[in-house]
């Protein structure tokens, strides 16, 4: 049990003007593979921050460390002032997380999915129903609340998962590849809803994507990752200007990452992405 005094001390890191999320030389090795290599970023409260890179760039590894699912090999990180290793239990209370993989339970209704998580997040009984209804309404799912999730479309499932991750009003929301496997219309709908979240709740959002278009339209700033390293960080406009006139974010990406087709990704990554895509389709 942490004492009240300690709580005060660690809260101080998240005061006004300080980043809500900060990593310092965050590193994770798997055997000889360095999945995240001296990764350092700072994110301000209310930002929508994109982590961009091809499959295998280390985006998911970074997200797993920040959501306390994976311990860093070295380096530090703080989320809302809490150390991700020393105060992991506190970090879990202030974050929302939508994994890349499908995480809604198909054999329950949308409402039931939210109900179980509202209990796991200890939302007071008298507030549960209001929060769940509000979450469903914000995501445009009120009409299908009592339908089984295995009858939802891919876009609806993603929106349900986002509603679920927002039930406890997290300070930081992690979206890992939120639109992978979605058709363009569903993708646009998810984008609209992510923007809406920021407007309504001021949530700081860290999302990963390998779609440049997504980073360009949604994010205030993007960090381009390649082979575990941070290649460059800046606003989409800045980054495009730095490469040259008329540059697209794709050009920026190629410029900073030295990306070569066939150099990245592996069987496991590919099979995972395809599986997710198939389930969401």
């Amino acid at each position, binding site marked *: *049990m942490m004492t009240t005094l300690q709580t005060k001390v660690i809260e101080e890191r998240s005061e006004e003007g300080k980043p809500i999320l900060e990593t310092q030389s965050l590193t994770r090795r798997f055997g000889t593979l360095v999945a995240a290599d001296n990764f350092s970023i700072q994110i301000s409260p209310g930002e929508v921050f994109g982590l961009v890179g091809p499959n295998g760039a280390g985006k998911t590894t970074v997200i797993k460390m920040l959501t306390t*699912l994976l311990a860093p090999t070295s380096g530090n990180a703080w989320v809302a002032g809490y150390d991700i290793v020393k105060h992991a239990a506190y970090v879990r*209370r202030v974050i929302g997380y939508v994994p890349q993989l499908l*995480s809604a*339970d198909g054999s329950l209704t949308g409402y039931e999915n939210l109900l179980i998580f509202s209990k796991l997040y200890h939302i007071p009984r008298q507030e549960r129903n209001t929060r769940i209804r509000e979450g469903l309404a914000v995501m445009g799912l009120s009409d299908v609340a009592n339908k089984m999730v295995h009858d939802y479309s891919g876009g609806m499932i993603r929106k349900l998962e986002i509603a*679920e991750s927002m039930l406890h009003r997290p300070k930081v929301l992690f979206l890992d590849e939120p639109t992978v496997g979605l058709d363009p219309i569903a993708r646009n709908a998810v984008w609209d809803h992510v923007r809406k979240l920021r407007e309504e709740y001021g949530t700081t959002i860290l999302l990963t994507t390998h779609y440049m278009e997504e980073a360009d339209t949604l994010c205030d700033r993007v960090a381009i990752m390649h082979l575990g390293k941070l290649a460059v960080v800046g606003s989409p406009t800045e980054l495009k200007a730095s490469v040259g006139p008329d540059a697209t974010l794709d050009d920026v990406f190629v410029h900073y990452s030295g990306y070569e087709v066939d150099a990245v990704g592996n069987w496991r990554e590919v099979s995972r992405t395809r599986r997710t895509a198939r389930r969401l389709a």
Partner: protein
Amino acid sequence: MLKPNIGVIGRLGSVIFGFTVDTLAVAELEARKLQHDPTEVLTRAVQPALWLLIFGEVLAQIRAIPTGKIPYIDFMTPGILAQSVLFISIFYGIAVIWERDLGILHKMLASPAPRTALVLGKALSASERGLSQALIIYILAVLIGVHVDWNPISVLGVLIVVILGSALFSTFSLIIACIVRTRERFLGIGQLLTMPLFFASNAIYPISIMPHWLQAVSNVNPLTYQTDALRALMITGGASTFGIVADITALLGGIVALVAIAAKLYPRVV
């Protein structure tokens, strides 16, 4: 995040309350799934029916197994209940591998719920399936004329032992799932374990007729204690070898140890 000073007892109380809420939320998820789709529970009725109606009836004819004053089919029925609970629980870990292959497990582990509560919630989820087996076996028992002890305390006792047995074997299964991490390997190991656990127990014959080495194995097999308690509680004239208190203590001890191990290993499955 600042909380008023509520004292040690108050804080302990709120921790226990929170832990219970988390555990029950995980168990509720399973209950709701079963409610939406009870098919599996029904198909699970086939195997115990075969054991009781064919194996049981045939063995009862030849009177080869010494079962004291009670008929063989009465002796065997609690054993088949224990077996059904074992079979349904020992493969429960595969559900966790499945949830890992989806992202449900990641989301659970990134929530503030303590790992121990997540594991215990899974154990109780398996118990819900175990209880469905108890219902099925009671019905079968009535159909084939087993002398069932309908004393409400005895029935309640049976249900409690079934809950404990399912929790124990499902947590064991969860530990295996955390270690092997893939469905294929898990299925192999599950198959490898079920029959030895079943045969090295008192489920369908008394320990006294086993060779010595098998008796030794049987005495450390949790299924033996589960069957022993069920036999004393479920049928009229049924007797316990070790005593019901000893049986339940053994099961509870096993659950505590296994849940502690599983909670440590659980994050590894991600």
